[in-house]
Structures are given as structure tokens and as C-alpha cells.
């Protein structure tokens, strides 16, 4: 019965209508970013890493992300047509992870040019760190596209931590994202991020100050 459909049901239907376009957008974004970063990839030293991952937001994750953007995390049942998953900025998302920091800066310079017309939305620094945790851009490849894509550039260790955190905690239970707004959880999580940054910096310094087969290119 049409009248009894919930807002979530309507959004799930919308998701599967959008899905082919979300997949195409993810593929297009990944391909464009990989092409732009090819020169950097080919010049990497053996110990340097450049990882590019892409993901299509899953249905329940998308519906819950839109709900969390509403006041008090609740739908207004009287206004079902106010909601569309196309309001989400990250239905298709690419993450570029780089090590060491110099490669991260190289990636940032290239991607910033490619995405100059997109909106920059950096993840702000946490206490004790001077630079944003990650650079984020969102935008659309064409005016008629319904899908907004996100490109995120982050250090290898923090990016890897976010992937583990997502797979272990949020993927099975998208509503647990709300827990992360609580300061009692933010504090220990920030300690992990600071430790990863310190570890990355120390590791980088140790490599720069030493020599060995793992630091020389095979070229």
C-alpha cells in the first residue's frame, strides 16, 4: 500500500535507481585520479606507497547518513519529499593514501589542480597536530550528474586506520556514527590518530637517516 511506505523505504528505492550512476561515478573518479597520479606512482621509491581505494556507499549506510543530517536525527514524516540521497556528498568516494609526507604533498598539489572547481572540505587538525588530518573535496563531474563524489587525501597510516575503523564498527552498524560525536569517544580516538602521526613521522625519519636495499629503487 503506497500510503504506508516509510521514508526509509522510499529512499531505498531511490538508492537502487541511483546505483548504476553511483558506480559509474566511483569508477570515473578513480580513473581520473589514477591517471593524474600516474607520474608520481611511476617514480615511487621502494619504501614509498601510494594507495588508491574507491567505495560505493551501501544502501543502509546512505539512508542512515541522510537521517543523521536531520535535526535530532529524525525524519519529518509530514515532508517525505524533502529527502533525497542525492543530498549526500559522498555516495561515491575515493581515498588516496600516501607515504611519506612528501609524497602526500605531491599528491595534494596534483589533485588540487584537477579538482579546482570542486568544494574543499578539509578534515580539521586535532589538538597537537598542525595540519588538517585529511584533505577532502566534493563535486560533480558534469552538470547533469545526480551524484556528488568525494576525493579524500590522507597519510597512509591514518587512512588505513579509518578503513579498519569503518569495516569493524560502522559498516555493520551505520548508526554507530552518532557515537563518534560524543567527546568521551573523540578523545581516545584522537590519541590513536596522534600516535599514528608520531609513528609515521619517526618511521619516515629513520628511513631518511639510514640506508639499505629497501630504500633504493630497482630502476
Amino acid at each position, binding site marked *: 500500500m503506497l500510503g504506508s511506505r516509510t521514508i526509509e523505504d522510499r529512499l531505498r528505492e531511490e538508492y537502487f535507481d541511483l546505483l548504476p550512476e553511483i558506480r559509474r561515478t566511483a569508477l570515473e573518479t578513480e580513473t581520473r585520479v589514477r591517471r593524474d597520479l600516474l607520474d608520481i606512482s611511476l617514480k615511487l621509491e621502494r619504501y614509498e606507497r601510494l594507495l588508491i581505494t574507491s567505495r560505493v556507499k551501501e544502501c543502509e549506510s546512505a539512508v542512515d547518513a541522510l537521517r543523521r543530517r536531520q535535526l535530532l*536525527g*529524525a525524519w519529518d514524516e509530514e515532508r517525505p519529499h524533502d529527502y533525497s540521497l542525492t543530498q549526500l556528498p559522498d555516495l561515491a568516494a575515493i581515498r588516496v593514501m600516501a607515504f611519506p609526507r612528501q609524497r602526500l604533498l605531491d599528491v595534494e598539489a596534483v589533485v588540487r589542480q584537477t579538482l579546482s572547481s570542486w568544494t574543499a572540505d578539509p578534515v580539521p587538525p586535532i589538538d597537537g597536530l598542525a595540519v588538517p588530518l585529511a584533505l577532502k573535496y566534493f563535486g560533480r563531474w558534469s552538470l547533469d550528474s545526480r551524484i556528488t563524489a568525494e576525493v579524500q587525501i590522507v597519510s597512509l597510516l591514518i587512512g588505513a586506520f579509518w578503513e579498519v575503523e569503518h569495516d569493524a564498527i560502522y559498516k555493520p552498524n551505520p548508526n554507530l556514527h552518532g557515537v563518534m560525536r560524543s567527546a568521551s569517544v573523540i578523545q581516545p580516538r584522537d590519541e590513536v590518530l596522534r600516535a599514528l602521526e608520531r609513528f609515521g613521522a619517526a618511521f619516515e625519519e629513520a628511513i631518511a637517516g639510514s640506508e639499505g636495499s629497501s630504500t633504493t629503487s630497482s630502476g
Partner: protein
Amino acid sequence: METDKEPILKAARYVYNFDRMAYYNRGARKAFSIEWVEDHTEDELRRAVEEPNDSDEWQVYAEPRPPQRVIDKFLAEINAR
């Protein structure tokens, strides 16, 4: 949220509901959306927490203010817990 705001809410026995992303205290009949807490200073939060609620109605701090039906649904949910 800044770490210095949560102790104010915890000390006043507010509970965080992560589905609704709001702090509430049944005894005080007050609730704060996480956005309201994030957008206001520590002093503003402290004043809002300490201000007595002499009415029988809940005071819901959320900006922009959601429609009353959304607030009613939220209150029904937390009252049912």
C-alpha cells in the same frame, strides 16, 4: 564536540542518545541536540543546563528548531525507554 563540554553534561546527569545525537535528562526535562552543544560556548551550555525548568514541558535546545511533530516523536521515544 570539544572535550570540555561533555563533563558539564555528565555532571548534570545527561545521557547521550547516539541515534538521535542528543543529550537529555528526564528529571530536568531538558534535551540538547549535539549541534546546539557544538555551536554554543561552554558558558552558554552551563547556563542552559543550570537554568531551572519550572514547567511540566520538556525544554528542547535545537537550532534551527525542528517542527513540533519531530520534537514530539523524539520525546515519545526517550520517554518510552
